């Protein structure tokens, strides 16, 4: 039987690890101990699985795991973390909106624009200091197809894609905590909004004009936006 050993290994993996392999994502809510069981399982993957069909999706090990470890540190014994991870990538058909026509000027004859929206990671955690933390990361792609007639009369199609990323973090401050504006302002690429209510929320958002070029940069960007919401209660 083919792949017998690797199949057996997968059967021993954490159920969410299996979901990452076969469905490239999952939605689940657990306390820190269960998430560290998932992390331990994921760390065994590379040593046991060779078949490329069963490879872990992009971002599972080098982006998702470090974020998971960071947030779990703050959960405390009673807190839970909800994760919705969809690591299928932006190119699955369900993530694309229908193409729509956009106005053109000669020599272009027609043009369409297609948006694809990929909310690939969503975290919601109740932290031990009593605050609620939400992190959302969304990749967005704009694809423009322009049809032109060249001087020779030949029709040409030009494609241009633009990939951007939105990182949004909301922290609901602990009950009764007002927070104070940090003395050092956030970097220009992070926008901060306060929302008052029964509990105050600090919202930090960044729109990156291009995707981070490495997993480390990706993790760093997300953590930096999240950090902004914690600087209000230093």
């Amino acid at each position, binding site marked *: 039987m083919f792949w017998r050993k690797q199949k057996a290994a997968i059967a021993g993996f954490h159920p969410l690890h299996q979901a990452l392999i076969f469905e490239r994502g999952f939605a689940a809510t657990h306390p820190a101990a269960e998430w*560290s069981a998932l992390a331990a399982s994921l760390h065994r993957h590379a040593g046991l699985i060779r078949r490329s069909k069963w490879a872990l999706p992009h971002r599972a090990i080098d982006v998702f795991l*470090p974020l998971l*470890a*960071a*947030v779990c*540190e*703050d959960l405390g014994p009673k807190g839970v973390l909800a994760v919705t991870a969809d690591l299928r990538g932006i190119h699955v058909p369900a993530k694309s909106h229908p193409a729509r026509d956009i106005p053109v000027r000669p020599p272009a004859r027609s043009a369409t624009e297609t948006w694809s929206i990929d909310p690939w990671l969503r975290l919601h955690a109740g*932290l*031990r*200091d009593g*605050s609620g*933390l939400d992190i959302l990361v969304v990749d967005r792609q704009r694809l423009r197809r322009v049809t032109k007639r060249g001087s020779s009369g030949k029709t040409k199609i030009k494609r241009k894609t633009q990939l951007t990323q939105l990182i949004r973090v909301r922290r609901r401050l602990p009950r009764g905590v007002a927070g104070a504006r*940090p*003395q*050092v302002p*956030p*970097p220009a690429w992070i926008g901060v909004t306060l929302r008052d209510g029964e509990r105050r929320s600090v919202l930090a958002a960044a729109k990156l004009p291009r995707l981070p070029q490495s997993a480390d940069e990706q993790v*760093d960007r997300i*953590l*930096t936006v*999240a*950090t902004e919401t*914690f*600087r209000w*209660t*230093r």
Partner: protein
Amino acid sequence: MTPCAVTTGFFTLGKCGQMAVAGCPACGRAVCADHLADGGMCPECAAARRQFGHPAAAAAARRRAYRHRQAQYYGDAGYYSGFDDYDRAAFEPGAAAHQDYLDDGDDALVDS
């Protein structure tokens, strides 16, 4: 009871506070059974010596690297130095270690 003085948390910092069973041979802080890292050291000291056998040592290293980066990024030295003078000392030979960590209550969750 002597509470464990190991720093926990990532965005929110606090002391572990469980009952300590030993003192770290490198820095002397009280350490509970859950936080005894390689060589009986506290996670910070183990991490400073690149001994990552205990998950808390890896977490300590991640937290320190992250705070250091953020402080540089923001040009906000306070984000690193305020984080925990005591923990930082383990990584900076020559820096004086403050002994004030035991004064923190068990539930002192400081967002330094």
